[in-house]
């Protein structure tokens, strides 16, 4: 108890101001802000439908979805200094959410997390929420989920699949952010050179951070497998045959 208190107080005293990576309020022109807000609507509708379907099958999944929303909220506003770049950024958390609960519900989770951040923490913005949800929620979740499932199908272990899923979810998010930003601000300039410029500017920070996100995701999936494999079966990440004590 005393040790936990000591580290908690230590962490509090060592804290520095937080920085976010979301596209800030006002960066995107109104037409693009509106476009991305409309683009996420079908995914949100499908996500809510999927969530209701899952909850009808098993009501206990709802608190789990709430827990994952808290995880995405915290992870996506947790600044991590990257010594190789001298800047701060944060992982996305959508990889682990998509792996555990599916990409569509993960979009809903991301939208809720980003809305709270925009309203109360001035991270991102209300007008850019559609763009941020598209990159982090739609692209991040889909890329992470597809990567995880593909590696699993190829016979990869949970740890390896989780690592690749988490890492690609992060890199996919920033690639999408680069494209969204380039489309929004390019004016009369050609798209591709600006897109490459933004991607290259993200690389020193996001390359190591994506690897870190992969490690975090692999760790979380492996921990769940060791401690609560029943939850992974319930969330259809593994089958009953893959349970550790399955005969």
């Amino acid at each position: 108890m005393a040790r936990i208190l000591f580290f908690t107080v230590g962490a509090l005293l060592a804290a520095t101001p937080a920085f976010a990576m979301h596209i800030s309020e006002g960066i995107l022109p109104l037409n693009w802000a509106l476009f991305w807000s409309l683009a996420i609507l079908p995914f949100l509708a499908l996500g809510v439908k999927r969530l209701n379907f899952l909850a009808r099958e098993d009501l206990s999944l709802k608190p789990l979805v709430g827990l994952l929303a808290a995880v995405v909220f915290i992870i996506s506003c947790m600044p991590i200094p990257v010594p190789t770049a001298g800047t701060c950024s944060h992982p996305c958390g959508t990889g682990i959410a998509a792996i555990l609960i599916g990409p569509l519900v993960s979009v809903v989770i991301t939208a809720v997390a980003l809305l709270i951040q925009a309203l109360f923490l001035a991270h991102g913005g209300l007008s850019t929420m559609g763009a941020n949800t598209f990159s982090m929620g739609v692209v991040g979740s889909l890329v992470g989920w597809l990567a995880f499932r593909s590696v699993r199908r190829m016979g990869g272990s949970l740890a390896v699949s989780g690592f690749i899923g988490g890492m690609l979810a992060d890199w996919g998010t920033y690639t999408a952010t680069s494209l969204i930003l380039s489309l929004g601000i390019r004016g009369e300039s050609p798209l591709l050179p600006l897109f490459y410029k933004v991607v290259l500017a993200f690389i020193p920070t996001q390359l190591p951070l994506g690897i870190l996100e992969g490690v975090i995701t692999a760790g979380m999936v492996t921990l769940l497998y060791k401690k609560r494999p029943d939850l992974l079966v319930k969330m259809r990440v593994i089958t009953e045959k893959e349970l550790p004590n399955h005969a």
Partner: protein
Amino acid sequence: MLEGKKKWKTLLMHMIILPTLLFGVYFFSLAPKSWEGVDEAVVEKIAKEHGREARDPLIDPGSGDLLLFGFLLAGTVGGFAAGYYWRELTKKR
């Protein structure tokens, strides 16, 4: 005998972890780097070059980082509780 060995192991672990943490804190606080977020270092910088600048948020929480501090404090209390009861959450079934 076993208890004594465990104590030495714990002491040795603290001797490694504590200086590492201390070094980490000083390295990140004193290193001559800006540590600005990639929103400022990349997104806002490139957007500014193309004539787009970030606006104040539609709902401005104001008061500098006070709100973030409140959030951090609440997170610390919540994290303390979650950390303390972590064993219950991860208990094998």
